[in-house]
């Protein structure tokens, strides 16, 4: 326990809000998203002996991002184990284990390496419950460190959400901050459907203050729910994963000009909390959806359609999309150009305000 864990709650609470926006120094008792995910896995392994964690380098190394650090030591090499390098194999293995009553939580080391596993994910994992008329359980949570922002080499900055949200039978989730990541991952694991869990790797080291009473005391939202992370009345920004913090930064700047932006963290990308998002857009009358993935056939199009269908009469402007471009994810120095910037977000807000 940190010696400063008993610091005043008022100060801690102030730091909390600021830390979520990525501007504050580390508060006294804090944890990173990596820590939170690690604790969620630890909890899942402890509470259900059927839970298994496996993938490339997840054992002794604790994963290349250390998300599985210490789990093999605590829960044994039968339940937390390294696999050969074969992503299709990893997911296929999970499907077989699930059929036999296990609750697999496999890891794909990086987003780009989920592609070799698409056959097992789409053709098998996603539809086994359906094909077996519910007799073959598929409670698999496929963890994938995802999205860009860390200037990694090619194939380490992919956004997979549109691909997997398109597949019937899959659920897709993406956390945006440490405390929420804990519950989101646990809910994904405890749920009985296959979930593709996209972890924003650029946010692994984001810190949040630990609530009094520990992680389990952090607010827990219902499965499938989005959340308003910042209320506002002039326009709604919709985002998930790493782009939530960027939207909060944009909202900070807009506020200086008297524009109050509401920021919605989608959390669940499938099913998508369409009513809540549309309700927010209806309130503010304007919506901008922000994602890292390329524009065309991205999830932004889906959000725009759902909002338009539900809130058409309340909208003062068409839904705007601020996204990556329709190009392969670029190498290092060009990454900041490719990813939605605060300026591009604010320009889109401007377009909706002036519409």
């Amino acid at each position: 326990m940190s010696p400063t864990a008993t610091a005043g709650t008022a100060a801690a609470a102030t730091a909390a809000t600021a830390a979520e926006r990525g501007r504050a120094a580390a508060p006294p008792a804090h944890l990173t998203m990596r820590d939170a995910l690690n604790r969620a896995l630890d909890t899942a392994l402890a509470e259900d002996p059927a839970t298994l964690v496996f993938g490339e380098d997840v054992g002794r190394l604790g994963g290349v991002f250390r998300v599985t650090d210490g789990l093999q030591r605590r829960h044994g090499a039968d339940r937390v184990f390294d696999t050969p390098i074969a992503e299709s194999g990893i997911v296929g293995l999970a499907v077989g284990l699930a059929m036999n009553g296990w609750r697999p939580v496999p890891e794909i080391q990086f987003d780009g390496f989920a592609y070799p596993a698409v056959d097992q994910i789409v053709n098998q994992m996603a539809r086994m419950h359906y094909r077996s008329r519910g007799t073959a359980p598929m409670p698999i949570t496929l963890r994938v460190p995802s999205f860009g922002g860390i200037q990694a080499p090619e194939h380490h900055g992919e956004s997979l959400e549109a691909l997997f949200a398109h597949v019937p039978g899959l659920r897709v989730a993406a956390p945006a901050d440490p405390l929420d990541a804990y519950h989101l991952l646990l809910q994904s694991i405890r749920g009985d459907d296959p979930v593709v869990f996209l972890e924003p790797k650029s946010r692994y080291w984001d810190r949040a203050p630990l609530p009094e009473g520990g992680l389990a005391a952090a607010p827990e939202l219902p499965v499938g729910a989005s959340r308003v992370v910042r209320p506002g009345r002039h326009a709604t920004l919709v985002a998930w994963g790493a782009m939530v913090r960027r939207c909060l930064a944009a909202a900070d700047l807009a506020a200086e000009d008297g524009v109050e932006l509401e920021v919605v963290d989608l959390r669940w990308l499938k099913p998508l909390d369409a009513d809540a998002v549309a309700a927010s857009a209806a309130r503010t009358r304007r919506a901008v959806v922000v994602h890292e993935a390329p524009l065309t056939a991205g999830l932004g199009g889906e959000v725009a359609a759902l909002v338009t269908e539900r809130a058409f009469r309340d909208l003062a402007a068409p839904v705007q999309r601020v996204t990556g471009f329709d190009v392969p994810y670029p190498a290092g120095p060009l990454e900041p150009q490719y990813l939605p910037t605060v300026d591009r977000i604010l320009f889109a807000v401007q377009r909706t305000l002036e519409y």
Partner: protein
Amino acid sequence: MSDNTAHDEPELVQLLTPEGELRHHPDYPLDLGAEEVRGLYRDLVLVRRVDTEAVALQRQGELGLWASLLGQEAAQIGSARALRPQDMAFPSYREHGVAWVRGVDPRELLGMFRGVTNGGWDPAEHGLHLYTIVIGSQTLHATGYAMGVQRDGATGGDDGTAVIVYFGDGATSQGDTNEAFNFAAVNNAPVVFFCQNNQWAISEPLERQSRVPLYRRAAGFGFPGVRVDGNDVFASLAVTRRALQHAREGQGPMLIEAFTYRMGAHTTNDDPTRYRVAAELEEWKRKDPILRLRAYMAANGVADDDFFAAVDAEADKLGERVRIECRALPDPDPLDIFHEVYAEPHAQLDLQRAEFADYLASFEDAGAEGGR
């Protein structure tokens, strides 16, 4: 090859012992002149220097990442020096020695790891395809390429074309690699599978990937496999030459397992102290590929002190050039990301490019820094 256990000691083709003593092998005769031996030594030293500089440049923030070839120089130089100009090589991401031999300037490699490009060089010009990060993929590309060679009628004689593909021990677990083995076997494709078994796939030791010595995998697919001492540049050269000849003449694929060791971290992001013991590295240091060649050369009068000093001086100069050129690599133009996505015009993308150009220009007009 019916024995599928790892218990018996597999044969290792070795022409130069760790102490620098020459060994004869009946199947792999090698007759090198002093000039050629000195050339190999120079290659080994220079690529190690490029590698050392690259690691340092990454530490200084000049490169995003670097995958070190330390310890694997002989496997790469030996095998690549067995290639002929018409041959095609498919690397993974650690084959800086192969790139060196194929005439790719270290600057191009550094550019990729600096992130100013996703590719770097013209594969056809160098007979070296681009680096491949997705484990195992390139084994199929090499096999397909080799089947094209076959259809061009470019095999069947001493002047034929052969293909070589590089991959790691971990890559042998990947479906693509096993499919490539089978496709190549079924089609008798002129491809040499060159597996650098450096004992580790990031943190996973070989026993997490395979229960049999890797070269024995070939037998199950119906083609020959051989294990060579990958820290022995002579043996790597001789065995690869023979395998390439086999392919060139139309006799089909071969698998070479180059038994070597990754002396450094997996990449500059990796911390091997978390998963392997220091004693292992110490043991492999005694088998260092450069030291044994130097010992051989010194003991047999192949080179004198002046030669070794000259190579060291050349390495110093090369290192300096690499440092300077790396720092001078221009940042790519932001609009580069739109180039060459398609071969044919694409109106939607052109529109995105134009809008992005306007966006960037709006900052120039305002005299401000763009892209918060």
